[in-house]
């Protein structure tokens, strides 16, 4: 779904007040019933991540962390049955998963007397039952489960969605009998940058030559598109020539401005594909 800037702005504006909880997601869906859920979620997720990045500095100073930790400890002692960590996260507008991470790190530091390794931290977040403090484990679990933007579960979901759409893309290509090399094959050949798909024989989509296809199971907003352009798309262009990006969850329409240069944006697998004619009459 291509969104014009005004539409996009309205959605973004609305997301500003939301927290990454299932309740808020429901509000978002109810507010924009005409947009696909995935698109809305993706936009929210991107916006929320931006918000978190902006405020990261604010939350990450030792004083602030200490304050959060003490508040959490205090509250948890007072109301052991309540979701105090989640409440704290919503109160300070920090992602519950991120807050859980901060507090867990702080807790382990206190317990072990040293900073824990990232690995240990990650495994505990992934499996709160490993956390020695039962109450803390429950609160951490609550935070990661109730965060739809961050956390190991979300990472896994994102990964799965990405993979599924890549497979969807491959499936479409196979249906069209378009021969291609996928990322793994390319990597095996030693390519330094690997789009999801390289077509062995280029195609034309809406009059544009396409050598490679990248699948993005997210909404293409300005920020992420710019990042992708710099880190991926231009690199592909530099190596393989013009190509196509599919933002399965839609994109901001005005971003599709590099078509002439060789980067075409689509929100679905294109239907009008022109292929090279091998012999007379076969096309």
């Amino acid at each position: 779904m291509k969104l014009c800037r005004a539409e996009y702005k309205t959605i973004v504006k609305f997301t500003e007040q939301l927290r990454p909880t299932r309740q808020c997601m429901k509000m978002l869906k109810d507010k924009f019933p005409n947009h696909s859920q995935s698109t809305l979620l993706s936009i929210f997720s991107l916006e929320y991540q931006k918000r978190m990045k902006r405020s990261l500095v604010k939350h990450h100073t030792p004083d602030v962390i200490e304050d959060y930790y003490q508040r959490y400890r205090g509250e948890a002692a007072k109301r052991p049955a309540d979701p105090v960590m989640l409440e704290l996260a919503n109160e300070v507008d920090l992602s519950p998963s991120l807050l859980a991470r901060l507090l867990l790190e702080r807790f382990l530091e206190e317990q072990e007397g040293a900073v824990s390794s990232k690995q240990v931290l990650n495994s505990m977040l992934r499996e709160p039952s490993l956390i020695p403090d039962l109450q803390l484990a429950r609160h951490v679990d609550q935070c990661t489960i109730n965060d739809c933007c961050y956390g190991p579960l979300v990472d896994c979901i994102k990964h799965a969605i990405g993979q599924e759409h890549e497979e969807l893309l491959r499936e479409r290509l196979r249906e069209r009998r378009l021969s291609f090399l996928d990322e793994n094959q390319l990597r095996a050949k030693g390519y330094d940058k690997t789009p999801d798909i390289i077509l062995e024989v280029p195609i034309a989509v809406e009059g544009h030559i396409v050598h490679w296809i990248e699948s993005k199971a997210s909404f293409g907003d300005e920020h992420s598109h710019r990042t992708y352009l710099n880190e991926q798309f231009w690199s592909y262009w530099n190596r393989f020539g013009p190509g196509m990006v599919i933002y399965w969850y839609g994109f901001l329409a005005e971003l599709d401005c590099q078509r002439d240069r060789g980067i075409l944006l689509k929100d679905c697998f294109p239907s009008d594909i022109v292929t090279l004619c091998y012999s007379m009459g076969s096309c």
Partner: protein
Amino acid sequence: MAALLESLLKREVELYRALAWLRGQTECTGNDQDLLLKVRKQEFVPFLLNFLRDQSSRTLSHGATTPAKTPSSIRSSGRHRLADFMISPPESQPSPTTQQHRGRRRSGPHGPTSASRQAGARSGHLDEGGRWDGAGRKGRGGGRISEPVSPPTQVELNFNSLEDFPPVGCWFNHLPPPSATKPSRRINPTPVSAERPNSKPKSCFTSTPLSQPCSPPSIPEVLGGSPAGSSLCLQQERELLKKERYMEDIYSRFSSLSSEPQLIAPCPDPSKVTHAQELNLLAEVYCACISENLVPCVFLELFFVLQLLTTRSTSPTEDWLTVFSWLCPFTDLLEKAYLRDVHSCVYFAVRVLENQFALLSHLDRCTLRLLVENERVGTFSPALRDRLVQAQDTSTAKVLPFQPSTDNRANFSSDKAFHIFKKQRDIFYELLREWEDCHKEPGWEFEAALGHRVRAMVSQLTVAGNHCHFARLFQKQLVQMCKGPRAPGSPGDAPDADLLGVVGADGLGRLQRLQERLSQPQAPSGPCPPPSFPGPQEFFKDFLQTASCCQLNQHLKDGLCQQLLQLNEVSILGTEATSAVGAEEAGGDMDQQRFSSVLLVARLLAKFLGFISFMPYQTSEAPSKEIQEAAIALRSKSAPVLDVCAVLRSCVRRRRTVLTVPWLVEFLSMLDHTGPSLPCYRTALCLLLQLYRQLRLGKGGEQFYMNHLLLMAVLGWLFQVKHTALMWLEEQQLSTSGLNHSLPSPNSQLLYTCCPYLGEFRKLLAAFVSGSASKAGGLIRKITPTSAELPGPSTTRSQQKLHQAFFHNQPPSLRRTVEFVAERVGSNCVKHIKATLVSELVRGGENALRDGLASEGACAAKLNDSLCAQLCDAGMQALERATRFCGENAPRAVSVLLPEETSHAVLTTAESITTRLATEKACNWLSSNITTLIKREWKSSFERITRSVPCPDAGSACPPDCTHKAPLASDVIIEIKVQEVLSIATGPRSEEEVFTAQHICSILNKVAQTLSCRKVQSLLSLAEQMLLRCTVLLACKLVSGDLPLVSPAEIVRSLLDEFVLLWAHTPSGPIPFHILLSEATITRRHYLLLVKLLIEKHLLKEEEIGSQWAKMSELSWPVVMVSYIHTVNQTSIVFTPCSGLHQDIGETISFLPVLL
């Protein structure tokens, strides 16, 4: 020619026949046979072009010049100017006698110009293109002359003559401004040359006295008795001139009459087009000429067509025409004014543009946009406009494709270097894109805009030691973007040119020049411009200057030098004089293309090699004599980057000057002030000078004319631009003459590409009437030609190996075929071995490894070593297999590629040589590399297996009735986790958030479906794990009572059964039951029930519970609880002795690493 065109217009000759004839499909039969056989294409085409220019000359009055129709130069009898030669083609050097000089240009926008144009046409000098000459000679112009065509005359250049041989630069600089120059009307006293008998005289240019009425001539009359005779004398010539002047007067008078309405902007109207049919026909024929590249320069014609399209003149009034036709009754078809008004001109132009869409679509976007925005295009052909709109979108990709063979990790010293280079490549292209976008903007400066980033990138090169890689990229990209014009899909092109190149704006240089010409057709830069870096070359030059990185420069020098010398040696000739021509005829054209492409690339490389080599010494001012002498003493001690003298002598000896000299000139044109005084360059320059002096156009026969022309042009230019530095040049003795040629002659396209400044001569001639130039004086340098000895080269060929002898008497194509096939088959053989033997071995090794790892006490490292050794031993059969492969494939390929008539013996020999060569190549490579290859492949397999990456196809089959429509893993996880169940179970939740058994069952059902469809899931072990994990978590919540259910008491048991059923049927992967056994859940009441179910289904072993128990002991879980579990275990299920558990702690820890 005229007859042909007339016949075409009369429909006596079918259009399609003429088109076929133009396209070289000459099977002429029938009525038109005679005509099409008689007329030569190279005469017809210029005739047609001139005809079109004549036709439009009156309408095309707004442009300062019509490019193809500038007046011809004036030549004095027997004495030629350098410029004259430079724009004359080899095969039809105009006879000096044909060079009438009626051509004279006036600056007036209307009549006079056209008259002179017309006249210029007749003089048979198609100036701008330069390729076709003598059109007028055989055209209508001198129809009365019945003398046979005079052969190209040998002319002596008088180099001492200031008038004939002025230094090129002087003309332009020393001339008074055009307005101040009253062109002197010098008359060539030579008689007008002969005319082909069947061409038509043009009525207004016959020698018939003006007082007599012009009788409309017809073809028989011309054939029978034209008034022209061999006794044509100067008197007649003068009459011609008078007549022309008279015509000019008429034109000017009438154009001044009709000048007022011209102020109104003309608005062409398709409905007002007269002679549409004829225009269509003309357009078709004209387009055929363009498509077949029969015209001097395709872009020139395009320029002309665009002029027609954009003409601003209004149509002459009817009155005017009436009067005009009364004065000079044009009654025959060719005299009709087809392009007399703006409507027709635009109509014709649009027809041509439609036809030449492919050409148009390769223009830059700016031009295309201008065309799209041109309302005339839209009015006359909306379809064309639409296509142009589409064409604007075509991509401009012209990047070098990533080539694993040179670009992958194996080519780098370290991972770091590889990754840094990855970034560098991206930065380089980013800079290139930015340059393309911005460099034309006013005020944009390379240094200011990109300097910082260039240097940052280059300093990274130094860090990573990637100079050689970047230099290679840089050099290849340079060649790709700047190699200049080449025929699309030319066979001599680099083999790695893939679709990227075809898609991209190829021949950028050509377009660049066109763009320049379109934007500033009248801005002369002088006939001897200093060396420049046009188009994208500028980017590369600026990049190097800005980067100023000595390592990069050194690597580039190495690379450039290597490729340059390689190109210099490259074999260009497919056909050698000895071989039978028949089968090889097609080779000629290919050779020519190949030659062009080699020459242009070599020139480019040489220029950059020179640029880099002399960059350290460049100064804006010439250093003083003392400094210069010190510099000479200093610099002559170190070896020059290129042994120019050796290259030069070698090329002379091998008769390849036409290839080598032009690139040497490019190299030397980059010399700094002191450079020419260094002994090595000094000698080379002296040699070149001598070569230059030996050059005589026409000497050595027609076939070398273009070779000489090219050499003369480039050398003349070099000596001019390096003029101040070369004052001292003395002659050197060149052992043999360089004026024989074993290479194809350059065509004029190549000539003009190599010498764009030749175009300046024409501009000059258009702006000034020559003759006055020499009076302005200013001769600086005289060169006395010495007569050249042209001793025939003695070709003594030494007897070498037997197979070389075999090739000796065979057509060269045989050798090329054999070598090519051997090379390819050999290379394919290696790939074949890799794909078959190596992968078979590695697969076998993988199985052995899996088996080995499964057995007791396996040690991966030991297994690895022994298996690898086994594989390498087995790899030795590669040689045998390779021999078999080559023996099977090489003969087949050779026999397909050799002509049918190849004798059996030759074929067999060729086959066996090919087989031998291919086998040698393959076996050589394999014997030294097979072990490495196997080891490498094995290493990655080994790593994959030991890292227990699940084999993608192991046990991943969908159930037989699977429709692959199972819900996506991500959707199901979202449903379980974020949106609903787990999140609610974990809380916080509201009172209404309660589940029914059906709800949970439906989720479990979805999970089961998703897990059973292996199509996507096999790729998603992570998601699958997460899904299973979520079910276990859900079960935990159920067991612990956290899951809000409608009526928990009744359904928990049945739900637990559902869970266990799902897990029991899960096709793959370990289920993370350890979560279940963690402390958070273990206290709950349904726990034991669940554990019991799991053990019954053999989903959980007692050991695992035991290990949990052990772990809990470690964590000092309350002993009471532990003993409670222990007791339960003991009584209700299979019991594991308590004492054993303690001993097993170590083992169990390693068994469940996730927990620790």
